[in-house]
């Protein structure tokens, strides 16, 4: 019996070790590419939200979300020639299929400059339509779900089916993303106000 356990344990350990070596190799090969994608995605998203900005300065830990269930995981101050244009805030929240990450831009005039969904693992064909560039919540004006937040005043109520159009059959996704945009917008606006008052 004792011998058996040793034998079984040894066999398991051997296979586990083999698998570890293989995974470590694949991981180290793909890691730079995956990180490159993430960095490029972030850079592209920041540029999309503040196209006129020429510099982004990371403000780690300077902001926190005032809403439960939504956390701020990063913030960047967008500026052009030294003048602050606004803030881009990355938030993490929970949607239908798990964690969702979103980048929200707030301008100094207390309006949103844009919203980009970075990660979302909701149902393909339903909640995932939030990230589709060809899915329009308002067909006439060809507005995508994140597109409708552009130029939205921070003081709006941010309520799905009131001032925010929902994705068909995906109320949970629509609500979760709207709450994240709202929390980020308010946190960003508050920071910008304080910065303006304090002369930062």
């Amino acid at each position, binding site marked *: 019996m004792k011998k*058996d356990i040793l*034998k*079984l344990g040894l*066999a*398991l350990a051997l*296979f*586990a070790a*083999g*698998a570890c070596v*293989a*995974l470590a190799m*694949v*991981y180290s*090969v*793909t890691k730079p*590419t*995956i990180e490159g*994608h993430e960095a490029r995605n972030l850079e592209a998203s920041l540029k999309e939200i503040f196209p006129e900005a020429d510099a982004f300065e990371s403000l780690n830990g300077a902001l926190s979300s005032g809403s439960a269930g939504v956390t701020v995981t990063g913030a960047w101050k967008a500026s052009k020639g030294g003048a602050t244009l606004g803030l881009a805030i990355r938030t993490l929240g929970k949607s239908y*299929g*798990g964690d969702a990450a979103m980048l929200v831009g707030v301008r100094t005039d207390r309006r949103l400059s844009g919203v980009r969904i970075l*990660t979302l*693992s*909701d*149902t*393909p*064909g*339903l909640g*995932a339509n939030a*990230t*589709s560039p*060809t899915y329009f919540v308002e067909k006439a004006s060809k507005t995508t779900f994140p597109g409708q937040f552009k130029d939205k005043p921070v003081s709006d109520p941010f309520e799905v089916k009131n001032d925010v159009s929902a994705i*068909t*059959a995906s109320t949970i996704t629509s609500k979760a993303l709207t709450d994240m945009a709202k929390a980020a917008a308010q946190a960003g606006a508050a920071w910008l106000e304080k910065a303006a008052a304090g002369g930062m």
Partner: protein
Amino acid sequence: MQRLWKIFSKGIVYENPLLMLMIGLCSAVAVTSSVANAVGMGGAMTFVIVFAELVISLFRKLIPNDARIPIFIIVIAAFTTIIDLSMKAYLPELSKSLGVFIPLIVVNCIIMGRVEAFASKEKPLDAVVDALGMGVGYTWVLIGIAAFRELLGNGTLFAAQVMPEAFQPILFFTLPPGGFMVFALFISFNIWLKKAMERRAAAPAKEAA
């Protein structure tokens, strides 16, 4: 050669994992709302099953019977992680839209079932051929169902508009209940196909007699 063809072809109709063995259905219903997802999922799944069956068949004499299930899981999980990381690095868009279903290949009963029932007893070449047959059988069903659902539920194929503007998408087909219904249609189609093939195989035999 004929023996290998027999092993390969049984996965496509006679023992199709989805339509005959009826295993691994959850992720199959979930990913078939668009054709691009179905192709990606079919490819990833085929990769994992081929390599898992190959490795387990190669080492089948070294795997102690009492510890075989954990060892199978280690091997399957390793290959699933490899394809997950590779897709994240080289096909980020596809990986994003498949989301959690790629890591979930680890617990897909098709792979576990084939490894346990076939690869742990047979020679490596047979195991790889069996895995390819199962992979092709899985992929054609996924693509078929996805084409049906995407066309009727969204009016598109590979995200390109196919149906005329006037066509009102039938959202029902994109939703899970519609998925189950299309699935049932495919199951009955496969049974019809199997019977037709059996009749054709029986006919020349009768002539000979």
